Structures are given as C-alpha cells and as structure tokens.
C-alpha cells in the first residue's frame, strides 16, 4: 500500500473541462453534471493499495474463508455481448470466460465479477476498507485537479481503455461499437484486463498509484449522491440517488477516455457485478504488508 498524505483537494470537474468534454463526444452536458460543482475538501491521510486487488489476492481470501461471490451463487456473470449486456452462464471471478480460468495465468490481473458486498468482504478480511470516493479521486489526481492521473493530456498508451486496444480515438458510440464488434468476435466474454500496474510508472497518479485510469472500474464505499443537492440533474441520476447506488470510479478496459477521468462518477447498483468492475482497498493505519 501507499501512503496518501493529508491535504486539501479539489473534488469534481471544472466547468470549462466539462464544456470541452461535451464538445468532444456524444453525451449531452447533463450526463456529466453530477461532477459539479467542483469543490474543496480536506482529505485525511490514508493508505491505498497501489493496484486493484488481483485474482491471486482474491484467491487467498476465498481459500481462507470459503467465500462465494454473488456471481458464483447465482450461476452467471454479466458480460457485454455482441450487441448488449447478456447473462454468461458460469462466468465469475474464477472463470471469467468458458474454459478460461483466472488461475493460473491471470493471477496478476485485477479481479472482476465482484459486487459491492464481495469487495467489502474482501476488504474486511484483509483488515482494510473500501475508499471513499473523495479519497479515491484525491489519490487519482493529487492536490491539483487534472483529468487523468498523469496530467492534462490524454494518452491512450498510459491506460487500459478501449482506445488502448482499438489503436484509434473513440469519441462516439458508433466508433465504439465498430471496435467492440470486432473485439467481441475475436475475444468473446474474456475481460481485456491487463496485469495490475502494467502501465506504471508513466500512467501512475502523482502519489504513485497504478491503474487509476482504466483496466477495471473500481467500487468505492460511497453512496451515490449529488455534490450540490440544489442542482438539477438527469432523471436517471436522480433515480440512482434514491435507490442506494454506489459510486464506481476510474473506468475500465472497455470504456472511453472520458469514463477513465479522475473526476468521472459512475453510479452502480451495489449488487451488480460484471466483467469490468473490480476494486482496491484503503486503510487508516499503516498496513503490515506493503504490497
């Protein structure tokens, strides 16, 4: 784990940045309104895993406890199919695709197919906790806001996102779908995660944390709520706030660059798990192991 020092941080996105994002891609500005207003927070010092929790780390937990994830109990995982989400029978963290086990071979890849309770159970077993979303964001960009962990300029080589695999810019659904159609035909439901920390050090955050953009989107402890309850927001986000959604951060290997921004907020039902959401842990006291 890495010590993230106490400090002031600007949380959320500047208005000018969202104007730029709106101009560059297909979603309307309202889609990003939940990132505003940008506001100052004082963050206390905490420790954070340098990388997302890996399959090898999660295996230690399940071997020690006999824990079964929600996906294992229900007998299917959720993957994005040729056209939309589908149930994939048998898909879970141990076997993310038919006949493809997470262990051995993908030991150092981030664990996926874990819901919020699965992530929290691991964290408790490890003597840690899930990070709050402001801690997560501070850890991603440091005291000074920047849209990506390494700085202001997007670079597809520094994060595992759709653009990393596509080899070209993806700024709208049509281009994403063109990439995805080719990708899914070739790859199927196997997550395109990369070994944790593969984009270090150039893709790291100012504190040295890896994979804070892309690879897997990450659960936080925080309920999804408006930064300013007085601001109007999309009806969908209002519904998510009413119904216990949690905040997921960082974007994943199948996401656009915009979803991998440090201040991007994704709202997710806590019992949802799929092939591109994982997590990392935080802690308030120095950990015994410094992995």
């Amino acid at each position, binding site marked *: 784990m890495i010590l993230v020092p106490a400090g002031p941080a600007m949380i959320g996105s500047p208005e000018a940045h969202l104007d730029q994002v709106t101009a560059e891609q*297909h*979603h*309307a500005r*309202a*889609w990003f309104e*939940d990132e505003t207003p940008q506001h100052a927070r004082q963050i206390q010092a905490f420790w954070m895993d340098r990388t997302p929790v890996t399959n090898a780390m999660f295996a230690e937990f399940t071997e020690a406890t006999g824990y079964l994830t929600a996906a294992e109990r229900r007998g299917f995982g*959720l993957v994005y199919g040729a*056209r*939309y*989400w*589908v*149930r994939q029978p048998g898909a879970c963290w141990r076997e993310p695709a038919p006949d493809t086990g997470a262990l051995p071979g993908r030991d150092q890849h981030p664990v996926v197919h874990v819901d919020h309770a699965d992530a929290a159970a691991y964290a408790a077993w490890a003597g840690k906790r899930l990070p709050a979303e402001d801690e997560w964001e501070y850890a991603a960009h440091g005291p000074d806001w920047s849209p990506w962990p390494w700085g202001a300029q997007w670079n597809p080589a520094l994060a595992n996102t759709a653009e990393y695999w596509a080899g070209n810019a993806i700024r709208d659904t049509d281009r994403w779908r063109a990439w995805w159609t080719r990708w899914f035909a070739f790859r199927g439901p196997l997550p395109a995660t990369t070994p944790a920390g593969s984009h270090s050090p150039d893709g790291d955050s100012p504190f040295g944390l890896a994979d804070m953009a892309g690879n897997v989107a990450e659960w936080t402890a925080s309920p999804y709520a408006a930064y300013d309850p007085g601001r109007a927001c*999309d*009806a*969908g*986000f*209002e*519904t*998510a706030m*009413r*119904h216990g*959604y949690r905040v*997921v951060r960082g*974007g994943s290997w199948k*996401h*656009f660059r*915009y*979803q991998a921004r440090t201040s*991007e*907020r*994704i*709202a*997710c*039902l806590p019992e*949802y798990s*799929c092939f591109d*959401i994982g997590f990392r842990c935080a802690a308030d006291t120095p950990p015994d192991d410094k992995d």
Partner: protein
Amino acid sequence: VNEVRFVLPGSWSALAGSDLSGIACTAATVGQALTWLTQRYPVLAQRIFADDGTIAPWTLVCLGNERVSDTGTPVPALGGELRVIAALMGG
C-alpha cells in the same frame, strides 16, 4: 386501467430518437407498462428485458419508491410513477 408515468434517463431520448420526458401509458401491471414502452421504442427492449422476458439484471425498475422485479406487479388504482434506469450509469 391505471396511468403509468415513466421517468427515464435523459440519454434514452437520444437512443429512442424522441423526447421521452413525460411519457405515460395506461396499464394494469408493470409488465404491461414496460411492454408498451418497448413496443413503442424497440431500442429500449434489450435495456429492460432479458432474453427470457424477465426484467434484466442490468436494469433497475421502481414503481414509486419500491423496486420491482416481478413484471406481474400491479399498478395502483391511482396510477404510479415508473422509474427505469440501468444498473450502471455514467460516463
């Protein structure tokens, strides 16, 4: 038969090619209301229903403040607000 008023993500209007704010139908059950919605806007069908016709696990459907998982759930006599969103939203 009772009025169902839909509350949907703004991004679904772009998908459907039509302003979905304020749309409503009459239905006796949640399933009837959702079927009306997806027949009118077929692009929404895969966002709401799984292949077996159940409410998909990647979707949240709420009647008033209550989460609904059974399409046979009756709509109250006075009608109701049906909120439908993805289980994962953002970006």
